[in-house]
């Protein structure tokens, strides 16, 4: 293993980890999307077939996976907006740290109300 070079602005820092997280969440969301189009396609088979499969989305374990899915989507969405700002906004690269903090703030502000509401539904509050 080569040792970490001194003074790098990217490797091992938040820029690298947000890039890694963007890839991992992107791949995860993509595979969910494939499954989600297939389960929705069951509306063309019969109402019973659709209701049965969509019923699995309501069980507590899958309900918790949905929390993970939404966490991934919110990160991917707002990290993507940050990427766009870094690429197209002249001051984007200079404020990249603040933008990173902004992604975290927006993520928390949207994720917390979602978790409360969704888990209330899933666990029948």
């Amino acid at each position, binding site marked *: 293993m080569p040792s970490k070079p001194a003074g790098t602005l990217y490797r091992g820092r938040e820029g690298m980890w947000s890039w890694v997280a963007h*890839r991992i969440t*992107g*791949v995860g*969301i*993509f595979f969910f*999307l*494939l499954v989600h*189009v*297939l389960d*929705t*396609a069951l*509306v*063309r088979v*019969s*109402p019973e077939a*659709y*209701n049965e499969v*969509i019923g699995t*989305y*309501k069980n507590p374990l899958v*309900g918790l996976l*949905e929390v993970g899915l*939404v966490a991934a*989507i919110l990160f991917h*969405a*707002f990290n*993507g*907006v940050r*990427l*766009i700002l870094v*690429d*197209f906004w002249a001051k984007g690269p200079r404020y990249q740290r603040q933008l990173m903090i902004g992604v975290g703030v927006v993520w928390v502000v*949207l994720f917390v*109300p*979602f978790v409360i*509401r*969704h888990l209330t*539904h*899933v666990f*029948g509050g």
Partner: protein
Amino acid sequence: MSESAPGIAAPRSSSRARKLKGGGRNRSGQTNFELYSWLFMRLSGLALVILVLGHLFVNLMLGGGITALDFGFVAGKWANPLWQVWDLLMLWLAMLHGTNGLRTIINDYAEKDQTRFWLKSLLITAAIVIVVLGTLVIFTFDPCLDPNSTLSVCK
């Protein structure tokens, strides 16, 4: 730094940039495909923020959330052309965005030409099947498929 794999153009590269860099040696063609792909990821990404977060808000936050999702819920939503267009746009943009993202990842991590070829063939096949299926479902959906349906639109 290792040399980039032959046959893969750098992201964001235009034909002009490639000409400056490697002259005619690049066998991947002199198109601006990677530049347009890079731009498409940003434009579709912005649209998807609205489309996907709107979808999640309406389906999971409003009303009974996940507990209210059933055949009748889908029938009610697709009775409105706005949601048909919304879901169609979301399907196409998300699939193109996701497929292009996976293409980039395959190019990055699959080192053999053969591996890349097969992974990308599988990816594109899956993407076409899903987009065609999803599009047909949105346009051929019949809420009154069941003759004994008690949904209000079927009476």
